[in-house]
């Protein structure tokens, strides 16, 4: 990441990130990237938990009735709220980074949802999927050294 520790925050703030080669240390805004991905994954898993609980109740009736059952599940509502919070944090993350830096990191969402599916719903994770999880984590790690604001 950076050897310039501590990075003078004021300098970082005053320069245009896309035009500078300023390397800087880990900042709160970096947490927004991972926080957004984490919240989105938790939101997805909670919605899934709510839908699992409503699956039997939702078997009958027309589409509108079924949707009503789904959208009134406490876990579904909570999951949507957390997902919304994740979206707000995503906006913060995007506002302070290159989009070519943050967007690929959102692939961690697949990793978290896959692991969550295994832990919470007993879903099977094949060897191929473990390989994919390792590659995404490797890629996100590589991204950290890619000059997060523009020129490395």
């Amino acid at each position, binding site marked *: 990441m950076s050897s310039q520790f501590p990075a003078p925050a004021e300098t970082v*703030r005053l320069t245009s990130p896309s035009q500078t080669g300023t390397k800087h240390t880990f900042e709160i805004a970096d947490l927004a990237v991972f926080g957004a991905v984490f919240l989105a994954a938790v939101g997805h898993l909670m919605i899934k938990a709510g839908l699992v609980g409503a699956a039997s109740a939702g078997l009958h009736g027309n589409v509108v009735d079924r949707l009503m059952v789904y959208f009134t599940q406490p876990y579904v509502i909570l999951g949507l709220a957390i997902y919304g919070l994740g979206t707000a944090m995503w906006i913060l993350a995007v506002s302070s980074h290159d*989009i070519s830096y943050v*967007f690929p990191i959102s*692939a961690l969402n*697949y990793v978290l949802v896959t692991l969550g599916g295994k832990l919470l719903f007993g879903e099977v994770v094949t060897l191929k999927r473990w390989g994919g999880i390792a*590659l*995404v984590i490797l890629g996100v790690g*590589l991204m950290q050294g890619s000059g997060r604001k523009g020129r*490395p």
Partner: protein
Amino acid sequence: MTATLALWISIFLNGLAQVLLKKGVGHTQARTGVSAKWWLSLLTNGWIWAWGLSFVVATALWILALSKLDISYAFPLLSTSFILVAILSRLLLGEYISRTRWIAIFVICLGVILIAAK
């Protein structure tokens, strides 16, 4: 509209949405904290509305495509949006993508394909 066409338009809009969002928020330097005023200003920002619209249309087309296509076919293709966003961010936002970043993007794409493929 065929399901495959809907899928590809969905993938394209999904990527374009992220670039529109970036165009809308700019480099606001959120590390110093953003105000309620900043959040409210997003409501009257045309790029943000374009982002929302792209997102909604992309999601609708995605659901439409998935009603016809196998998810293990559709999901890995979604990883192409990471490459698309890199290209669009370079063309439309002037972002510089270093060699390391390109490698990182391709490694992530490969990982997503492995996670999502049957």
